[in-house]
């Protein structure tokens, strides 16, 4: 990821000498990059280097864990990589104690996605509305602060009582977590719209609704997209915690079972599955973000990434 944007940046410099000062100074500080071909091979070499060091670190970590768990510490508590791998293999070939692993993944994913979409929509709409209306913002400020101060994970228990063991209680937990993450960013984004741009649009003939649609929403988009990254993580946490609290299916329940049977490997395996899902979602969101924000100078988007 880092390299992709870095390479974009250098090609930008090479094709367009008259862009921004930051890009120009970046070009000046690396005078050794003479031609695009040189730059590209240098990048490839660096990329290989970074990836091999990463791989080395992971291998070192797994081997040391495996060895200490075999010879020094009790694998009953700490498990070990081979046991976790065996557990994962077992889940994906034979199935879990609750049936197919895919079914658990699909259930958790559905809850997370539903909570994410609903929470993000509500957060964006309310955030922009309050961001553009002083009066509404003043009226709602104390309520929102209070609601934000509530330890939201605890709500999961309440939702199980309200909505039962099915999916809706998990969606509700995910929704609450996502909503606040997105709301505050959308609010800030809508508030910080450049007055100059709004005035310009009004002079050009824009109505209030047109100003909202063509100036406020696009201005707030980079703020909103930034929040969506962490928001999907929150949606997954919401779904899993919801399942942990009380459910009949899902990855959270699987981990809960593992905990109940002192199966440390099962907990690790569940964690790994959830992490992979989160990384995949992150990747998809980054793709969407790059598409939506293709107007941004690459230097600015490079800072946001990682």
């Amino acid at each position, binding site marked *: 990821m880092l390299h992709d944007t870095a390479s974009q940046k250098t090609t930008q410099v090479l094709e367009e000498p008259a862009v921004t000062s930051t890009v120009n100074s970046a070009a000046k500080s690396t005078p050794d990059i003479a031609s695009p071909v040189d730059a590209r091979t240098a990048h490839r070499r660096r990329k290989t280097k970074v990836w091999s060091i990463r791989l080395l670190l992971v291998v070192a970590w797994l081997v040391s864990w495996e060895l200490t768990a075999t010879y020094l510490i009790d694998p009953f508590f700490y498990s070990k990589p081979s046991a976790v791998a065996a557990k994962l293999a077992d889940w994906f070939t034979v199935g879990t104690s609750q049936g197919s692993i895919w079914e658990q993944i699909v259930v958790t994913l559905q809850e997370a996605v539903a909570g994410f979409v609903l929470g993000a929509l509500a957060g964006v709409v309310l955030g922009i509305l309050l961001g553009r209306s002083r009066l509404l913002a003043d009226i709602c400020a104390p309520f929102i602060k209070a609601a934000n101060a509530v330890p939201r994970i605890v709500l999961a228990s309440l939702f199980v009582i309200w909505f039962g063991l099915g999916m809706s209680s998990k969606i509700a937990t995910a929704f609450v977590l996502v909503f606040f993450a997105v709301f505050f960013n959308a609010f800030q984004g809508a508030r910080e719209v450049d007055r100059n741009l709004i*005035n310009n649009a009004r002079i050009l*003939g824009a109505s209030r609704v047109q100003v909202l649609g063509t100036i406020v929403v*696009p201005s707030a*988009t980079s703020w909103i997209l930034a929040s969506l990254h962490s928001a999907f993580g929150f949606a997954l946490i919401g779904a899993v915690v919801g399942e942990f609290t009380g459910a009949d299916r899902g990855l959270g329940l699987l981990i809960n079972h593992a905990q109940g049977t002192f199966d440390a490997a099962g907990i690790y395996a569940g964690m790994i599955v959830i992490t992979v899902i989160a990384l995949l979602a992150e990747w998809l969101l980054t793709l969407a973000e790059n598409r939506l924000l293709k107007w*941004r100078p690459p230097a600015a988007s490079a800072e946001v990434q990682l």
Partner: protein
Amino acid sequence: MAELIELRGATKRFPTGSGGVHTAVRDLTMTVDRGEFVAVVGPTGCGKSTTLSLVSGLEPPSEGEVLVGGQHVTGIPEGVGYMFQNDAVLPWRSVLDNVAAGPRYRGESKAAARSKARDWVQRVGLGGFEDYYPHQLSGGMRKRVAMAQTLVNEPSILLMDEPFSALDVQTRALMQDELLRLWSGTGAGVVFVTHDLEEAIALADKVVVMTSSPATVKATFTVGLDRPRTVEEVRLTSQFLEIYREIWDSLREEVEKAREQGATRVA
């Protein structure tokens, strides 16, 4: 027929951060005719941009009257185009879509707006850059986009706030000529704010000198240079130098006063 723009004793006060009021413009009276090019010069911070915001209807006057086409200004008057001091092109839109914004807002179809925009992008000399985003353009090119964006609406009143001040000398001369070419024959009244007295004289029919803060009209000078003009040539005529000396005498006092004001404010 009523004047195109008329300010009568217009005053504008702003609340300051510390609870007081700051008078940006005081008792300002001036007129602009149809087809007239008026340049406004004055020391920095005196209230030139504020004057334009009064005419554009973005800010109501605290006192006095602002009339456009004989009508009191309430909201943005029909036919006003305004090039702001700071860049106001939309960073998330391509050059073409930036220029097409005005016609789109005014209810034209996407295709019609884009074909108009394409024409104006050509006219300001940006042909071939239609699909570029603003961050890929130079400062001068962005100013051209802003100019096309404003002119595509065919304004009958054109307000320009130091549109070329950030440009290098050559580009500026080029843009000035282009502005005169695009404006000639449109019959639009122009209010052109600038720090650059040479620019003011080279472009305008009338130069208004403003006092240091709070701004009011100190003196108005008529520039009798023939049109069509080429700024690089007109600047070398003896007539030009004569007018320049006359106006500079008036302006210099205000610039010095403004400097003293600034010094005491800082101290």
